[in-house]
């Protein structure tokens, strides 16, 4: 099956999503949030069984957070990036931890660093940061240089 035929098949199985192909052996799928779980499980049964990672991008100027899933099919040797968007205020995405065992860990990390809620995920406690009281650090309105100056101090400034 060529990549164009695969793109057509994926588009037919997931109505409501926009499919495009790029970089030779990759597909890109944009899905609305309410179809997130069904799209991912549909892709998993279609052969994309390997979840590379779940990531999040903060589009602060558009006031949205974008959630990405990178999947790979060993049999077809095709990669697909699935994208969805949620608003920055009180973001929530349904959980896919039942589909892949390590998806729960990625969701926990995104919850800690971006503040996205995953209702249904049993374990969302912080695990990387110690006693964190500020904004989720990977958001664009968190200034890491200023934080480092105030919390830990810069040597050159202290010695003056």
């Amino acid at each position, binding site marked *: 099956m060529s990549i164009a035929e695969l793109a057509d098949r994926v588009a037919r199985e997931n109505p409501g999503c926009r499919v495009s192909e790029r970089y030779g052996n990759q597909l890109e799928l944009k899905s609305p949030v309410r179809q997130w779980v069904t799209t991912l499980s549909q892709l998993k049964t279609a052969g994309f069984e390997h979840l590379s990672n779940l990531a999040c991008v903060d589009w602060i100027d558009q006031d949205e957070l974008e959630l990405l899933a990178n999947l790979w099919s060993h049999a077809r040797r095709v990669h697909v990036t699935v994208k969805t968007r949620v608003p920055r205020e009180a973001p929530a995405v349904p959980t896919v931890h039942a589909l892949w065992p390590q998806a729960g860990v990625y969701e926990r990390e995104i919850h800690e660093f971006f503040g996205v809620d995953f209702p249904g995920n049993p374990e969302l406690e912080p695990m990387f*940061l110690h*006693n964190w*009281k500020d*904004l989720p650090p990977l958001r664009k309105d968190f200034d890491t240089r200023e934080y480092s100056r*105030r*919390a830990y101090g810069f*040597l050159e400034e202290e010695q003056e």
Partner: protein
Amino acid sequence: MSDMLSISREEILDGRWERILNFFRSRSLWMLYYCTGCGAIELPPSMTSRFDLERFGIGPMATPRQSDILLITGYISLKTLKRVVRTYEQMPEPKWVVGFGSCPINGGIYWDSYATVNHLEKYIPVDVSIAGCMPRPQAVIDGLQKLMRLIQRGEAVGYKKYQLNNQWYKTNQREVLERTEPVLAPASSARAEKRARRAEAAGALVGEPAGGAS
């Protein structure tokens, strides 16, 4: 935050009898094998057959209760700092701290990171710093030999500084490890600022919502 006590050099350096013991101590230093950061990758080459640290009497040790040197190999995140402080306090005296690389000196390549401390000297006393990112095995051996010479001369007394200035070190540690307030301005005011800027650009008066509930 209290200042460090000013103590004269003669009070804190080792006396003559202590220096005789130091002659033997410096030739049998055991270091705690706790790899705190990325600098730890150059420890196995320093310890193994090519650059052999053991000919100086320096060998790895598993527990802090039986080691003399605490090697901070590289950067220190907050969780690591908590463990390093406890490990340092568990070691019996005399004990020495060696900072590997540029990260314990001034933050190194992670100087603007929210997760790593920039200046280790504020939290535990550091006796010798080895520059590099990361220091090659020859630099490691050079730094440890410098520590051996300092011990023999009686000048490696970081642990006495820790005892005398305990309050100062503890205040710094608590400030970083036991925060109760956020460090930067709270999120709501940052969003209000942004909304105000957008409203100004759209021509509305600052303080009035620009289309939509605030």
